[in-house]
């Protein structure tokens, strides 16, 4: 979630449908961490009784959260370095370690030290040019890299700065105007970023749109005139590069993981349907087989309903029907319906 400047560690997964949490993990992938800037972090669009009372409440404060956190992380590293070298000295001299106390272990700062040592990588939820420039400046000063700016709807305004810093960009295709920080979002963003030389991907935080990312990428052909090949790269090899897994996935090449989709048409066309989805060589979706299974489900449903009606007629105990709802984490500010049986987490909490 984007509620905090320094969010939490993320896990890259593969969509091995039906596997348990552990088996979904992408083996050997680098560790990442989510950062966030802007309105979510300063709680602009949330109904907090009495208003926000949490620091940061402005983009000024957000910058200082990062400065403070990385200053502490560096001090923490220094403390450990000093302790370790003292310990080494004593061990070498075969002296007792009595009186030498290890610094207090701090898991939050450990994660930040990993970032400073290029062992953990940042994806940062970000929108407007001032805050993007601000974080780049803090990162350069403190000696860390922002691996990927995500959402990055005003990235086109500071593409040169992002390029110089060495960041990647992962953006929405065409959403805008649902809050102030996306007022200047433009659908040409991805194409401009791409043309300036950045490594660009298309993402969505919408549960339905995520399954049509090929079409979202295809919009860059309309907005910015990218070729079909360039558009498809936005959702294949480019994101693989920014996630440091391009040696395993992102293109069809000898030696890479057998993660392949068979389409009925060019995948940048609205008329394309996925026919087979294959992960690690295993077919996880087969359209023909799926249609067969749907027929079986319909028959089973009809059978159960008939049985229920029979039970009711024979006077058995019945309870009123209750549909199966699912709770979904959505960005409610986007206002995208997910059907009548989906309940937004926000609604479920209050």
């Amino acid at each position, binding site marked *: 979630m984007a509620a905090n400047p320094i969010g939490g560690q993320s896990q890259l997964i593969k969509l091995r449908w039906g596997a348990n949490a552990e088996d979904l993990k992408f083996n050997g992938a680098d560790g990442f961490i989510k950062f966030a800037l802007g309105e979510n972090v300063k709680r*602009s*669009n949330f109904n907090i009784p009495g208003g926000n009372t949490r620091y940061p409440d402005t983009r000024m404060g957000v910058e200082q959260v990062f400065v403070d956190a990385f200053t502490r992380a560096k001090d923490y590293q220094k403390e450990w370095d000093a302790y370790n070298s003292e310990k080494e000295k004593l061990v070498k001299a075969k002296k007792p370690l009595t009186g030498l106390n290890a610094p207090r272990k701090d898991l939050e700062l450990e994660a930040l030290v990993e970032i400073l040592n290029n062992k953990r990588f940042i994806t940062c939820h970000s929108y407007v040019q001032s805050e993007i420039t601000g974080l780049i400046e803090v990162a350069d000063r403190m000696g860390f890299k922002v691996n990927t700016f995500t959402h990055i709807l005003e990235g*086109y305004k500071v*593409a*040169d700065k992002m390029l110089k810093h060495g960041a990647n960009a992962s953006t929405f295709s*065409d*959403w*805008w*105007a*649902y*809050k*102030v920080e996306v*007022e200047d979002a*433009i*659908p*040409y963003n991805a194409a*401009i970023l791409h*043309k300036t030389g950045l490594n660009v991907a298309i993402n969505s935080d919408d*549960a*339905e*749109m995520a399954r049509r990312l090929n*079409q979202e990428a*295809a*919009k860059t*052909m*309309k*907005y*910015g*005139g990218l070729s079909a090949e360039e558009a498809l790269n936005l959702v294949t090899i480019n994101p693989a590069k920014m996630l440091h897994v391009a040696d395993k996935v992102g293109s069809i090449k000898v030696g890479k993981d057998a993660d392949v989709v068979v389409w009925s048409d060019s995948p*940048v*066309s*609205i*008329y*394309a*349907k996925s026919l087979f989805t294959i992960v690690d060589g295993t077919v996880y979706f087969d359209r023909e087989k*799926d*249609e067969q299974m*749907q027929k079986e*489900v*319909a028959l089973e*449903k009809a059978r159960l309903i008939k049985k229920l009606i029979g039970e009711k007629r024979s006077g058995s105990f019945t*309870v*009123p*029907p*209750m*549909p*199966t*709802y*699912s709770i979904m984490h959505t960005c409610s*500010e986007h206002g*995208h*319906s*997910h*059907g*009548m*049986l989906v*309940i937004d987490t926000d*609604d*479920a*909490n209050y």
Partner: protein
Amino acid sequence: MKKIFFIIITVAFAATCFSQANVLPAPAQKGVMYVTHATIHVGNGKVIENGTIVVRDGKIEKVGNDINIPSGDANVIDAKGKQIYPGLILPTSALGLIEMSSIKATTDAREMGDMNPEVRSIVAYNTDSKVINTLRSNGILAANIVPQGSFLAGSSSVVQLDAWTWTDASLQTDAGMHLYMPSMISRPSFGRFGGFGGPSAGGPASDPVKEGMEKIDKLKTFFREAKAYNAQSTHEETNLKYAAVKNLLEGKQKFYVHANQVKQMLVAIDFVKEFGLDVVIVGASESWQIADLLKKHNVSVILQQMHSLPTSNDDAVDQPYKSAAALQKAGVTFAISDDDTQTRGRNLAFNAGTAVTYGLTKEEALAAITLNAAKVMGVADKTGSIEVGKEANFIISSGDILDMSTSNVTDAFIQGRKINLDDKQKQLTNRYEEKYNLKKEKEKKPF
């Protein structure tokens, strides 16, 4: 020289203002205009190859491929190799009512209260919204401006998207009345007092069918009273709410019922029988289950959730994509819309494109966002297709407009007026292409 200087000033202004203040509504079209050599998608299923459209004083005078163009200085637009479509119509939107959904001061779509038949969306429609031009850029030239609500929400108007004020924007004022049908399915109770559960966690707190039907019964009583009221020529006391449904009860207004569940739609069909209303179901995510019944009762439909997850766990993963084909097969008159309030309406043609992938023909899908949308909204006599006598509302695209990889609207005409297709986002793009010196590449690959 003076003229060149003026052009430079204009371009500089266009590139730095971002308010779209430089995009002026086009003046009335006068005289005769020919658009030639195009593939014309009429909107009614027909396609005319190498066709010509003759426009006179804002109306379509002739359409065909056997039209002679007079020699001399006739006003001719050569659209060789291009596709012409009727101006697209967005059947439901809060365009112009909501500028930025998270900022309350910019939202005027939902009034307080359950019974607001007197509320009219048209008076809040802001022709200067920056969102409007981004929809025009994708070929949307008309929209139904719909009030939101919790029950009887008020009336919508159909507008064309090139106007100085809402009075000249309006194509059909107060064209329809909107009812948001109460939910008829149980929903678990939440939070501290209930906890997310289901039957095993204590069961539904209330009976939604009973509660919903009580509300509907009250509405029936209201309509009966309104009918009696409006049958009288004079009144001791004026009742604005009764008066507000006069046109509806006389069949001069469409009755839009926002409903997704089968139960809600059945209640709607039953409800309108007594009052003889011309009903349109909006949303209609489960309409595919009762398509034949909808046809039988002559109910038309606006599908709003083309790009949505399936409604229930038993549904096919692509059910929302193929609902349109089910309605088509049953012969239901339907339009395709979008459930977003304002900005994402520009993806209307791609919503229709998805319906093609899942069973419609391209011309059937086009009809769902042009002629059939106009029929559903009651404006098909004025717009919706490229046919003689209608307003000259059409767009020119260099490629198939239903597919985002080929859609490219180069020209648009509203009432024969060639409208300015610039928008805030194109202006920002221009500004930053200057910054990165991308202009030359842009010339190679125009968009």
